[in-house]
């Protein structure tokens, strides 16, 4: 397997407090990881660092074969990494426009956008929400729209922050059912989570943040 992302000496500080000091983080292309750790261990912050929402120091960064600097956040990573927030927020447009947002930002032709949005909506099982105002969607529906909004970009790396947090019943199961299909679509996936059903998905590697250090266990 090829290494998609390799970071050495990744440190994140808040003022004088060192949140984490990671010797080495390697994400293989097409592999899936769950990132666990106690509340406050820095799981969400690590994901936010990887998608450029938080600044951090890195001694060495290689992404997709290119040696880069983490600050300022490289365009190559911005275009290839998608992030789904724990509580996704919807733009006050329409569900298809929400999903098309990143494609429009990339200047994709309208026909291609329409095709990809239809495909993503079918994948997420949200075709019936096409005409629903995004602000009125339930938590589970918003999460599925957000997953479709990220997947439609065909990212090399998908970062999911607690994708099933605050969901229960059918909404949670619907989201869990989508995760393996993301993994099989060729993207690398890193999920920060506490959900046992996600942690025990087959073929998923485990990353654990403990006292500022990162431990890794290969998939069983």
């Amino acid at each position: 397997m090829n290494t998609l992302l390799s970071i050495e000496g990744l440190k994140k500080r808040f003022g004088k407090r060192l949140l984490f000091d990671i010797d080495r983080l390697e994400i293989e292309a097409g592999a899936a990881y769950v990132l666990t750790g106690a509340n406050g261990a820095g799981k969400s912050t690590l994901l936010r660092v990887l998608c450029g929402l938080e600044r951090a120091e890195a001694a060495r960064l290689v992404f997709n074969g290119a040696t880069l600097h983490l600050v300022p956040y490289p365009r190559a990573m911005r275009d290839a990494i998608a992030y789904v927030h724990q509580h996704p927020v919807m733009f006050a447009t329409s569900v298809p426009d929400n999903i098309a947002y990143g494609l429009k930002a990339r200047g994709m032709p309208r026909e291609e956008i329409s095709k990809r949005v239809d495909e993503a909506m079918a994948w997420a099982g949200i075709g019936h929400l096409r005409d629903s105002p995004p602000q009125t969607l339930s938590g589970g529906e918003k999460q599925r729209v957000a997953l479709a909004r990220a997947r439609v970009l065909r990212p090399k790396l998908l970062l999911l922050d607690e994708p099933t947090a605050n969901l229960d019943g059918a909404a949670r199961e619907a989201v869990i059912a989508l995760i393996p299909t993301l993994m099989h679509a060729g993207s690398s996936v890193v999920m920060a989570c506490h959900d046992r059903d996600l942690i025990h998905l087959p073929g998923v590697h485990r990353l654990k943040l403990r006292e500022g250090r990162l431990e890794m266990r290969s998939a069983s």
Partner: protein
Amino acid sequence: MQLIQAVRDAFALLLSGDPVLWRIIWISLKTSLLGLLLATPLAVGCGYAIASHAFTGRRVLIWLAQVSLSLPTVLIGLLLYLLLSRQGPMGGLGWLFTQSGIVAGQVVIALPVLVAFTLAAVQGADVRLAETAITLGASRWRVMLTLLHEVRFGVMAAIINGFGRVISEVGCAMMVGGNIAGETRTITTAIALETSKGEFAQGIALGIVLVAIALVINAGLMVLQGDAHAAPAVR
């Protein structure tokens, strides 16, 4: 009884299509809307920039924007008068006692209102909106447009408030415009003049127009806001 008669005369004056009266209304609308049109892009851009960026002096700028909300327009008029008078640094423009001078005053009066309201609207927006736009690959420009679209009702309220302030101000228009009949006489300066002469009918007629403008503009805002006012905030 004098008031009732004055109101009757005011309506008669309005309905008669009196050219002097309608010229005053036209000058007021023209200078106010032009001032607002010039101030809005600059102020919304400044409000957004202050709200969304961390930089040295940010708090001072916010403080200045808020302080300038309470500056009397007559003081702004005085400062502009000094700048635009023949001996002033901007005297060469020849704007004193012209509609251009009034428009310049309206821009200065509208700017802090628009900046302060836009700033508040953008600061009140959910931080995840900008983060989501950024992580989906939006450029800085697209992030700004997205965020302003999300807080559009706040921005509209800013523009309405700005318009309310410029159309109703009298001090600056009087000082910089000079209240010249047919040239720089606006609704408010005309009301002040007619009242001082004891001619209440025209003053009331212009007052009615001022209230009608406020009603129409606010009704327009409510239509644009759609269902935003449909449900009470507290149930």
